[in-house]
């Protein structure tokens, strides 16, 4: 029997560029280390198991250019290894400490085992570059990797077109360097879309992007199939809308699976719980308590009296939730297919880091889900948006609505009393970049280097993460400092380029520090109409 519809799971793997060679250790670099151990490697392990067991699957995953840049940076790779060695050391100590208590000891063992496997995969299998793992599974036909804006800049709040173009073009270039082919899809940062941005995507060779539900539902003209089909923008780039129901069952704090009382608690970490001197070597470099990744308790409920984590029970729950998720999607597909004259596609996008980092059992859930879809039913199949377009090359043409997947669906999270001050600086820098780019086309040497560095600083300042972090009030000072630093560096270079007094020593310092996108070309900021004159 033929399937009646499709499920497209899209994982968005992203972290802002955090790399501080000027320190031996840096708290914010742990965002990356935690994500590697808890999310990226568990996903890679899952891909491998599925492949070895002959379970076919199709998943879509964005790996953002900043994340790519960090994953292939040798300094960060070495720092991650060091971090991992410390984790292993702590886990070994924990094993000793808990040897009298079987229930806890087996959790220490679980972590020790996971850390060791991480090391084996990271070091022995992929020679410190796990991007090769993603490439491997893409080339083998399991994954569809898509790109993202260069530094995850929130495009609806960019006022000049060249800023959007630079985000996209640099993103495409970085993807190509990492994965050896051009990307077909893009994850617009925060799913932020404003009308006509698709034209820029078209110019850069992108074939599809994703928006939140209302991006499609409120499109002009009325969409024929709700969010359950792909559509074309006038530019010819396709768009897919997020399914609310499948999204909510995972994202929602109240109704979502990750809140189950048997799942592991994210906050109770031995880094906070154990004797200070004992954990000190494994927590934050400045001596403040922080996560170690070893967590022994389950969510339990709305109580501070947490109960011990039981991995077997949690695993059962993950299987149960995977079954429930699949059942609901099947029902959805069946129902939709009764009055659609094509097979519906359910698009379910999530932050990749949700799986494993926040929701410890997330990767097992995914694995169960994929296996169940493969073995237990015939109603739907996993698919990627590109596969769907190949099956349905003719689609309704519409203009998606301005939208984002953030709080209230528009720009508010990135534009409010806490962070609105950044835009006057970002816009000013973008304007200056455009003017200088046009004036300096074809320059060489120091001047070219300075202009390329200006492009890097501008891009770094644009990361939506800084505004996000400021709004959520964690690491606020760090985020503020990052924006100010990049704007400051940009403005100083601007002055030096304008007055032809480029300080090479200063430039070198910046090139070493903000070293991402080695192949960037500032001429991306030249206006499109000007570009054609070349």
């Amino acid at each position: 029997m033929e399937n009646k519809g499709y499920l497209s799971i899209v994982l968005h793997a992203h972290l802002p560029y955090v790399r501080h060679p000027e320190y031996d250790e840096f708290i914010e670099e742990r965002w990356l280390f935690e994500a590697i151990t808890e999310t990226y490697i568990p996903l890679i392990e899952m891909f491998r198991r599925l492949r070895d067991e002959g379970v076919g699957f199709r998943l879509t995953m964005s790996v953002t250019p900043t994340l790519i840049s960090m994953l292939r940076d040798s300094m960060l790779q070495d720092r991650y290894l060091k971090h991992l060695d410390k984790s292993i050391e702590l886990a070994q100590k924990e094993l000793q400490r808990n040897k009298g208590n079987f229930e806890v000891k087996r959790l220490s063992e679980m972590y020790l085992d996971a850390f060791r496997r991480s090391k084996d995969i990271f070091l022995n299998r992929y020679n410190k570059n796990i991007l090769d793992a993603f490439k491997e599974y893409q080339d083998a036909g399991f994954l569809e990797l898509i790109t993202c804006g260069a530094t995850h800049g929130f495009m609806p709040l960019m006022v000049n077109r060249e800023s959007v173009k630079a985000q996209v073009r640099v993103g495409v270039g970085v993807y190509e360097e990492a994965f050896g082919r051009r990307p077909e899809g893009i994850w617009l940062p925060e799913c932020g879309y404003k009308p006509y941005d698709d034209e820029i995507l078209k110019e850069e060779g992108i074939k599809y992007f994703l928006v939140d539900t209302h991006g499609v539902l409120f499109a002009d003209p009325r969409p024929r199939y709700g969010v359950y089909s792909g559509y074309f923008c006038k530019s010819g780039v396709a768009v897919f809308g997020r399914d609310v129901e499948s999204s909510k069952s995972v994202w929602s704090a109240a109704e979502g699976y990750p809140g189950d009382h048997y799942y592991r608690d994210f906050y109770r970490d031995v880094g906070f719980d154990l004797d200070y001197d004992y954990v000190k070597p494994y927590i934050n470099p400045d001596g403040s308590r922080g996560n170690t990744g070893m967590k022994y308790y389950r969510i339990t409920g709305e109580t501070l009296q947490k109960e011990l984590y039981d991995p077997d029970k949690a695993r059962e729950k993950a299987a149960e939730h995977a079954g429930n998720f699949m059942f609901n999607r099947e029902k959805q597909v069946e129902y939709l297919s009764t009055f659609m004259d094509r097979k519906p596609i359910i698009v379910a996008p999530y932050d990749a880091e949700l799986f494993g980092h926040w929701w410890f059992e997330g990767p097992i859930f995914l694995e169960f889900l994929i296996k169940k879809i493969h073995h237990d039913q015939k109603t739907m199949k996993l698919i990627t948006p590109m596969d769907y377009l190949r099956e349905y090359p003719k689609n309704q043409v519409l203009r998606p609505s301005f939208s984002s997947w953030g709080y209230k669906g528009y720009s508010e999270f990135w534009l409010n009393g806490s962070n609105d001050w950044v835009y006057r600086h970002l816009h000013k820098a973008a304007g200056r970049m455009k003017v200088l780019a046009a004036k300096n086309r074809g320059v060489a040497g120091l001047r070219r280097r300075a202009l390329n560095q200006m492009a890097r600083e501008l891009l770094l300042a644009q990361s939506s993460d800084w505004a996000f972090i400021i709004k959520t009030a964690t690491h606020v000072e760090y985020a503020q400092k990052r924006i100010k630093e990049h704007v400051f560096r940009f403005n100083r270079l601007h002055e030096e380029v304008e007055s032809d007094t480029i300080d090479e020593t200063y430039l070198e310092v910046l090139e070493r520090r903000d070293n991402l996108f080695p192949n960037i070309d500032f001429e991306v900021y030249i206006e499109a109409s000007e570009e054609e004159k070349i």
Partner: protein
Amino acid sequence: MGKDLTKLKRIELLELAKKRKIKGVSILKKAELIKILSKDLAKKAEVKGKIEQKIKRDKIVKKIKPKKKTSKPDLRKKKTLKIKKIAKESLSQELIELTKFQAGTTDRGEEPRSQIGSESPEIKHHYGEDSLALLVRDPWWLFSYWEIRGQLWEDTRLRCGSSGYKEVLRVYDVTGVEFKDSKSYNSYFDIELTPFIECWYINVKDSGRSYVAEVGLRTDSGKFFTIIRSNVVVTPRYGPSELVDEEWMVVDEDYWKMFALSGGYGVGVSSEELQKVLKQRRLDTISSSTKGSLEDKR
């Protein structure tokens, strides 16, 4: 203060340093922290006056800045009630995303030291030029920021000549018209500006419209002198399109069904409820901006 610093724990010292806005301390040992802090505390008396002044100034600005003025508060309330059905009211996604960035207990509260000696991360608020920008926050809110040099203010005051005038932000609805020399527009409203304020959230009545803004002087006799004009923005229309695609034969019934299934009314609305919500939804739509248009199509 008279506190014995040596009795405090390192963490507490860090906390104190953070309160005293001393930067670059997180990597310091306890002894070094004590040294820096005692120096700072001694200095405190001297600079106290200055700091207090600064804080006072900051407070005044903060007090006024985040106030979001609305020209028609009653209308806005109604709209908000309506969107509740569809918009994400919950922050749970953001709260989960946030955990990506939770490495430490609390805010790091400290900035990494810059090793480029001369570099200061403080950036100037002004660029010494005149500009006014308009951004779309959502279907009902715009954000504008501006920088206007004293000279331009002065020139405009001279131009207007009148002694009685107000500084205003004028917001024009220019949907479907080409905006030229402040004369072609559908409607406008003014927001009176408070001195020293250089950004504002603007509440607009209808979604899916085009706007442009000007800062200028409005004389008591009603004349308006433009100081500076913004870019034009288009707000997203909140709600389904009125356009029906004939090629794809999107008939009304199918459309609303797919709309509902896609989560257009919120998740978990059962098919029974659906009819009710659907009806209500249509009434809602009629009673607001798109008068009668849905009724006609039935």
